[in-house]
Every structure is written in C-alpha cells, then in structure tokens.
C-alpha cells in the first residue's frame, strides 16, 4: 500500500476507543475477551516442565505435537487430585483460561486432572503385547493357514453392528456359498471380552466351524479395547479352530490381530479374503476339470487312431484277406502263365515258319525246278546247236560205214561207202 494512503488516526483504534489505550487497558480487554469467551473445559495433553512451588501451587505445561499451554494447579486443587503428576504423563485436565496481566500471559487454571485413557491404555497395550509376544503367543510358526473352503464360518461379533452387515453383504455379493453363523457377543464395554471368550469356547464345543472370524467395526481405542484384553487374546491364540481377527479399520491393530492366524484389516476384508479363496478354488476346480477332460479326450483320440491303424493292419492279416490275396496271386499267375504260353507258342510258331521257309529254300523240289529250268535252257541251247537243226535247214551229215562223221574230203577214199544222213533219213552212197 502506498505510504501516502496510510491514515494515521490515533483517535480511532480498532476497539473503537477514542484514544490510544494503555497496556493495562488493552490487557484487561484481552483478559475479558478470553476469560469471558472461552468456557471452562477439558484439555488433553502431556505434562512437561512440572514445577511444584513451595507455596503448594503446581506449575506445568500441557503440550502436544503442535502447541503448548501453561497451566497452574493451585494448592487447594492440587490437594484433591488422585493422579500423581509427573513429566510425560498423558492427562486430561479440566480448567479455565486465565490471563495473568502482570506478565501478559494466559494460562489454564486446572481444577481437575485425570489420567488420559489413551495414554494409559496404550501403555497397557504395549506392556501386554510385549509380555505375550515374549511367551511366543504371536509367533509366526503358530499361525495356521485358514481353510480355503470353509463350509461353516462362525462370526463372533455384535449382531447389530456394521461389521456383520458388511461381512454378509460382501460374502453374498461375491458368490460365496456355505454357512455363516453369527455368534452374538458384546464387542465393547464391560464384560465384552468375557462374552467373546465364552462364545469362542462355545463355538469350539459345537465343533461345526471350519473357521471363526472375530471382530467389529471401527471405533476409538477404548471401543476396541476388549480385543486387547488378555483373556480374549489368549483364547484366540489357543483356539482349535483357525481364527481371522477383523477389528476396526485398517490402521487399528489389536492384540487379537496378533494372536489370530490371520489378521484382516476390517470385517469387510475378512469377507473378501474368504470369498476370494472361494473364487480361486472354483477357478482351480474348473481348470482341473478342463485339463483332465482335454487329457482324456486327447488320449482317447490317439488310442482310437492307433486302434484304427491296428484294425486295418489286422484286416490285411485275416484269413479272408489271405484267401483274397491268394486269389489275386492265382489270377495273376494264371494271367502270367497264359501270357507266357501264348508268347512261347508264338515264338515257336515264328521259329517254325522261319525254319520251314529256310527249309523250303533248300528243298530238292526247288533244286529240281531250278535244275529243270537250267536243263531246259541248256537243252534249248543244245537244241539250237544240234546237227539235227542243221539237217533241218538242208544240210547232210556224212558218215563212214562205221557211222563216224566224215567232216573232211580227205577222209574219203575212192569207192568208199558213205552214209548221207538227211533230216528225214539216211541214204547210202558211194564215193566215185
């Protein structure tokens, strides 16, 4: 804001006073405002910086992680308190705010001090937890697996609480099947732990349960306290039936949670757990079914194929098949035989005809014919050259008396008788 716009007006303070107040006046107004505006009430915190004065008044601070508050317990009030104050104590105090004007401080005038339940319970919780843990009550090896498929589940809880409603709603919605028995018991307040212990004992006595759930919905530490009581924690640890502890919200841990076989974060989570196992088992059963069926189908198919194969082989080996084979072979041989015969006959016939042709070529008849032809031709040639033909042409053959042909004149003596042969006869002549 620019400087020139600042309005310096001491006459109009915030309180509406017409002038600047003195410290005393201002402080008185603060005192009036605080003491009149804040009613006496309970404040929870941890005691620190405790100082008991000789006067008998006790001064301390109440603090928590974020703030601290000065407190005073006047002698008269201090004398009435049963709680021994000490540094670090968690307390709830009743008191009123007061402003100590001399120092400009406000403080709590404490009238009553009680121990803070949470702090006390928390200590008891830690102490009992340590003791039971040392006994081995929470040991991992004590834990049993919860049955995947409990037929009958007992739920120790308040029948009117939210937990049982959530549990049943989830288990129904997720298709879980089986028997759930609500085992009614007080889950908070006086006697709650004893009731739950008795119910747990009764549940075991009945002997019908495969699984017991014990729990309740969320609440304060005090509300959940029954689940930290030793008797119940021991009973849960000793249960013959597996136990799921399902108490409060996710952030709440009770000793029952440590003692149980399984801790479910909430009753709803217990229902989820139980029904998930159911769904998983259903899935496993389905898978086993499918695998088994597939295996048998496959094996049957292979066996059937082998059988078919064997059957066809067997059929080939059967007597009928043998006889058929025999027929076939017989026919085959018969065919081959007749074919062979035909071939052989043909071959012989061929051979015969060739041989007879050859024979024919060399037969006497043929030779005779040939020779006859030759003879005829020679005869014709002879005929052509024969003296007879010369005679026919008019020539005469002269022969001596002995019949020898006389070819020359010189051979003929005087008076010699000759024979003149004509074509048509012989004439005896005498040379002159």
């Amino acid at each position, binding site marked *: 804001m620019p400087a020139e716009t600042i309005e310096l007006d001491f006459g109009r303070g915030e309180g509406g006073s017409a002038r600047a107040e003195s410290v005393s006046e201002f402080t008185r107004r603060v005192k009036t405002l605080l003491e009149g505006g804040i009613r006496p009430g309970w404040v929870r915190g941890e005691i620190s910086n405790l100082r008991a004065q000789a006067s008998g008044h006790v001064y301390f601070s109440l603090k928590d992680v974020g703030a601290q508050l000065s407190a005073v317990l006047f002698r008269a009030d201090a004398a009435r308190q049963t709680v021994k104050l000490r540094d670090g104590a968690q307390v709830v105090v009743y008191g009123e705010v007061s402003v100590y004007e001399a120092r400009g401080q406000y403080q709590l005038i404490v009238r009553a001090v009680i121990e803070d339940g949470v702090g006390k319970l928390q200590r008891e919780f830690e102490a009992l937890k340590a003791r039971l843990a040392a006994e081995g009550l929470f040991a991992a090896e004590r834990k049993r697996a919860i049955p995947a498929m409990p037929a009958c589940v*007992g739920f120790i809880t308040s029948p009117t609480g939210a937990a049982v409603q959530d549990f049943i709603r989830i288990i129904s919605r997720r298709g879980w099947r089986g028997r759930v028995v609500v085992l009614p018991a007080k889950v908070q307040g006086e006697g709650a732990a004893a009731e739950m212990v008795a119910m747990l004992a009764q549940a075991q006595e009945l002997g019908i349960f495969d699984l017991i759930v014990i729990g309740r919905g969320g609440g304060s530490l005090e509300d959940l306290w029954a689940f930290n009581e030793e008797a119940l924690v021991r009973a849960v640890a000793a249960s013959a039936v597996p136990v799921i502890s399902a108490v409060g919200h996710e952030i709440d841990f009770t000793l029952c949670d440590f003692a149980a076989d399984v801790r479910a974060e909430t009753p709803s989570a217990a229902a989820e757990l139980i029904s998930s196992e159911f769904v998983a088992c259903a899935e496993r059963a389905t898978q086993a079914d499918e*695998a088994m069926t597939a295996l048998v189908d496959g094996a049957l198919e292979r066996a059937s194929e082998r059988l078919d194969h064997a059957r066809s082989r067997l059929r080939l080996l059967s007597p009928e098949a043998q006889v058929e084979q025999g027929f076939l072979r017989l026919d085959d041989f018969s065919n081959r035989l007749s074919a062979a015969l035909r071939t052989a006959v043909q071959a012989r016939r061929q051979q015969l005809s060739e041989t007879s042709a050859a024979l024919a070529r060399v037969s006497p008849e043929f030779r005779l014919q040939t020779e006859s032809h030759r003879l005829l031709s020679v005869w014709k040639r002879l005929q052509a050259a024969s003296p007879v033909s010369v005679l026919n042409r008019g020539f005469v053959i002269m022969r001596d008396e002995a019949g020898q042909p006389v070819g020359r004149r010189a051979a003929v003596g005087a008076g010699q008788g000759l024979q003149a042969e004509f074509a048509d006869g012989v004439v005896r002549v005498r040379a002159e």
Partner: protein
Amino acid sequence: MVQLVEAKESKLSFEVALGKLESIVDAMESGDVPLAELLAKFEEGTKLLKACETRLKEAELKIEQLKKQKDGKVAFEKFTTTRED
C-alpha cells in the same frame, strides 16, 4: 427357523479333494500314462471334481445366528438384519 446342531461332516475336506484332483491332473499330464490308467485316474478325478463342485455350486449361502435357549441348549435361527447403530 430352528435347526438342531448338525454333526460336522467327516467327509473329505474340499481342500484335500481339490489338492488330490490337481495331483491327479499333474500325474495325467506327466508323459506316457497308459490309457487304462489314464481312464482310471479320470474316473477318480471326476469323482473328486464332483465332490468339489457339490461344495462350490450346490451349497447354499445360509446366514444364521446362534441363539441360546432357556434350557441352555443352542439353536440356529435365520439371521435377520437388525442393524441399530
């Protein structure tokens, strides 16, 4: 609806039956099982499966509440929603 306390069934538990069924399937899957043996296992497996399915499918969701009688005995009544908080 009042029911007397039933004796707990002494039948094979579901987990055991399912476990057996799965080991039978494993055995069937392990290589060369003779057909006769395979069929015998199948038959056994089928019985186990039937037992499992009975538990899975035929069981009904029953929500009951334990009530104590005056004579100290207990009975189971149908649980009815009586939410008060």
